[in-house]
């Protein structure tokens, strides 16, 4: 797994049937035909109802989830991949590489000298094992419940050569035992004969924790010759992952014990939804990964031969690690991962895809890690050895009690694992000094010079720009406002963020001043939550000398939620949208629709907001009966000007006029008289010139330095 194709998310249900036709063709993105678990139910399931295996849909209530998960794994291990399988694939597909399985096989092999008979298979059943543990004291046969899943492992163990594939069918609960160190029971028992090893019931399973400690201390460990699976590679022991989860506590055991147990014992049950099952059919989920084997350094991916992963084929011959070692191609030079990361993927994937037969590509490789940095490695700790089902608590085991010594050992193990799983504390990253110093210099210069412009404002002030240079879009706004009559309603959309209030207020102060001079009636509205408050503050702070403003005769329609959808709704029916307003009283009583406004002015810094007004509102400004259109003008931040301007440039115009930034406000103030823009103008120009100098000098310096360093490198 890795960056996987979003297969379960990708194909909608309505397409899944369609897609299934393409399944065989769906090399790159998977096998859609795998969607239906019923269709692809393995024969051994369908032919053997007594096996206890049923599809997840059946008898869901009666069977505990861990059992359901168990049978699910088995039912799918020979059949098509389900969603669960995809996520299990790291375990399932590991086959003989899975160290958990190896230990399990060692466990079994010691009983039967590497041969597992069908009868003995039952011994590895979960309840048997638990009862075997219990039998240490009670010496009685473990009961087998009716709904206990009986695994037909003989199907997998058809021949000695096929022993390894059988291991993949081993339930994870078995795998989980050794994964916690329980299976390595012979570690400190050199010379112990196999007969003794067979008496599993007589072995204190908790004592194995101590045994493993001893083994790790370097005490001799006897390993069965000819059993490659007993060669547990160093580093295969799980450290934190099996314990990194906290399954629910049943109460029958100490919580941590249940955690241990469930971490290893319980399998993930069937996917939660049919949809997930359907989505599971995408084998591309497993093929196309972020850390695709093709993306990996050669030393990681070299042993990932395409023919080594038929985990979905129980009859496929498997290989021992030795065999695999023999088959490994000569390792290539190692590439660091960062270099791999910047290597074009296509170039790499295409090579691998040329080598990969499509059918096999669609199948998950059974021998590689697919998640995280270990992706592509073989013989490594499984990335997710603790795949368990968390949905339901594990079933309590009656009569299971811990002795004090067992508890002490368990506590010891828990403390060891606890430290392993603790995450490293976060560290704050340091800042490089030269960058910091450069930033300081810029900040000091900018703040000092701009502030000095105010300090020296009595002796040095710039005049506003000449009105002759006023651009036509500014003139258009002025002429539109000039055409307004006294009492005309103007919708003022306050659509800027508080942080932009400085610029937008400087840009629009002259416009509002002009509107008030024309005795226009102002109605505020906003799709920003802060908009109504900002609009109020803007009018009250800057125009409180006007009676119309100070007596709050203007209307504030408030906040319209829902983004552009809300805006569309507002434009469609302003009364319904703001039903709480006093529409039967002035100043709103004259307004029935948005076409009753004489002018719409949008104050915004965001081109998307401007676009929303153009897209959603502007088409509705035309009166369908009279054909007259309410003009829409915009006061925008300088950053939005190039983006809003095209709406002005179209014919017919979608935006009838435009004022941009403090420059536009400055032009307008040459007509209406000085206001905010004039107040800021000098400092603004100082800051602009200073920034230009810094950027120019900085760029030239950097270019020169780059050139010089390039020259010196060339010489050397």
């Amino acid at each position: 797994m890795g960056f996987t194709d979003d297969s379960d998310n990708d194909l909608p249900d309505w397409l899944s049937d369609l897609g299934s036709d393409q399944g065989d063709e769906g090399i790159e993105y998977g096998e859609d035909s795998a969607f239906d678990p019923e269709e692809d139910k393995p024969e051994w399931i369908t032919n053997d109802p007594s096996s206890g295996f049923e599809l997840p849909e059946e008898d869901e209530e009666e069977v505990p989830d861990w059992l359901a998960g168990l049978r699910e794994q088995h039912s799918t291990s020979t059949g098509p991949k389900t969603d669960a399988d995809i996520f299990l694939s790291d375990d399932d597909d590991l086959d003989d590489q899975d160290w958990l399985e190896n230990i399990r096989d060692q466990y079994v092999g010691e009983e039967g000298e590497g041969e597992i008979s069908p009868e003995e298979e039952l011994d590895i059943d979960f309840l048997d094992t638990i009862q075997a543990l219990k039998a240490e004291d009670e010496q009685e046969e473990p009961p087998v419940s009716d709904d206990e899943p009986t695994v037909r492992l003989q199907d997998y163990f058809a021949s000695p050569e096929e022993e390894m594939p059988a291991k993949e069918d081993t339930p994870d609960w078995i795998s989980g035992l050794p994964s916690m160190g329980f299976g390595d029971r012979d570690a400190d028992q050199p010379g112990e004969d196999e007969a003794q090893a067979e008496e599993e019931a007589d072995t204190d399973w908790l004592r194995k924790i101590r045994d493993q400690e001893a083994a790790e201390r370097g005490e001799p460990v006897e390993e069965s010759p000819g059993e490659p699976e007993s060669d547990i590679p160093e580093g295969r022991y799980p450290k934190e992952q099996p314990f990194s989860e906290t399954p629910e506590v049943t109460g029958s055991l100490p919580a941590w014990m249940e955690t241990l147990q469930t971490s290893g014992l319980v399998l993930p049950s069937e996917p939660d939804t049919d949809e997930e099952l359907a989505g599971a059919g995408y084998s591309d989920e497993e093929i196309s990964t972020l850390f695709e084997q093709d993306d990996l350094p050669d030393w990681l991916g070299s042993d990932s031969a395409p023919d080594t992963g038929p985990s979905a084929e129980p009859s496929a011959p498997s290989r021992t690690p030795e065999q695999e070692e023999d088959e490994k191609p000569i390792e290539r030079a190692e590439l660091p991962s960062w270099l791999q990361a910047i290597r074009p993927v296509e170039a790499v994937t295409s090579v691998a895809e040329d080598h990969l037969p499509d059918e096999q590509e669609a199948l998950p490789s059974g021998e590689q890690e697919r998640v995280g940095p270990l992706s592509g490695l073989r013989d490594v700790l499984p990335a997710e050895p603790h795949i368990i089902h968390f949905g339901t608590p594990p079933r309590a085991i009656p009569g299971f009690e811990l002795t004090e010594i067992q508890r002490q050992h368990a506590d010891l193990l828990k403390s060891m694992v606890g430290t392993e799983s603790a995450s490293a504390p976060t560290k704050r990253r340091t800042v490089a000094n030269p960058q910091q110093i450069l930033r300081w210099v810029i900040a000091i210069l900018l703040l000092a010079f701009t502030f000095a412009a105010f300090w020296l404002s009595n002796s040095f002030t710039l005049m506003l720009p000449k009105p002759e240079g006023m651009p036509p879009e500014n003139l258009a706004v002025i002429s539109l406002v000039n055409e307004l009559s006294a009492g005309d309603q103007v919708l003022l959309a306050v659509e800027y963020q508080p942080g932009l209030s400085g610029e937008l207020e400087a840009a629009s102060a002259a416009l509002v001043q002009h509107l008030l001079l024309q005795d226009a009636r102002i109605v505020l509205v906003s799709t920003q939550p802060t908009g109504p408050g900002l609009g109020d503050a803007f009018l009250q702070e800057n125009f409180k000398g006007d009676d119309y403003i100070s007596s709050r005769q203007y209307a504030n329609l408030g906040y319209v939620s829902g983004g552009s959808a809300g805006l569309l709704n507002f434009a469609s029916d302003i009364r319904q949208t703001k039903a709480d307003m006093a529409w039967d009283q002035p100043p709103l009583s004259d307004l029935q629709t948005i076409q009753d406004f004489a002018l719409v002015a949008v104050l915004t810094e965001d081109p998307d907001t401007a676009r929303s007004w153009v897209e959603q509102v502007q088409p509705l400004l035309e009166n369908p009966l009279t054909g007259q259109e309410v003009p829409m003008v915009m006061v925008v931040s300088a950053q939005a000007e190039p983006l809003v301007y095209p709406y002005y440039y179209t014919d017919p115009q979608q935006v009838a006029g435009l004022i941009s930034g403090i420059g536009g406000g400055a032009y307008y103030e040459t007509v209406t008289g000085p206001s905010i823009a004039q107040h800021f103008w000098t400092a603004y120009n100082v800051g602009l010139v200073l920034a230009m100098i810094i950027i120019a000098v900085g760029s030239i310096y950097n270019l020169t330095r780059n050139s010089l360093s390039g020259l010196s490198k060339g010489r050397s």
Partner: protein
Amino acid sequence: MKKFISNFRAPLGMIFAISAGLIMLMTYVLPLDGLRAIILNIVMIGAAAALVIGVFNLLAVHVKRVEEDNKALGSLVLILALVITFVVTLLQEYTGFYPDWLPGSDWLLTYIQVPVESALMGVMAVTLVYAAARIVTQRPSIFSMIFVLTLLVTMIASTQFGMDSNLGQSVQTFISHGLASGGARGIIIGVALGTIATGLRILMGFDRPYGG
């Protein structure tokens, strides 16, 4: 029962998404204004409710920080500010006895939100100058140089000198309303294409970001 529910969770979400989306889409191409109004009416309540739910998310993060670290002064300040602002704003709206001598929501907006946000915007000026001065080093290419040149020319045209100069205005007009307008149109159209594709993926059920 669990299985039954689990079977229908994501599909239900998808059914709602697709059906509501398709109906809404039809209102753009067919005269179904009434239907669109009904959907939008409901949707807007939901969008506003989602905003309030977002507040709970924000609170949860910072409450956790305060619980984990007693020195998380900032988080504590955030929680208090949020709760006080929320309560004050609603009290002012729905009770007639909110005293004038206490800071109201307008006060909080005017004297806290606006100045901090404006100052943050102002600080960005330093960041932008710094970034622009370094871009030719950070990403050395001919296009970075074009970027810086255009930036400088536009800035010159925005000064008093540039605005009063016919040449400055002509150059600014050509760059901003000619070259940049062309580039912006291309980008806008491209973004629109991407938006349509993304929307259609959701409407066809391929993307299900709602838990599916």
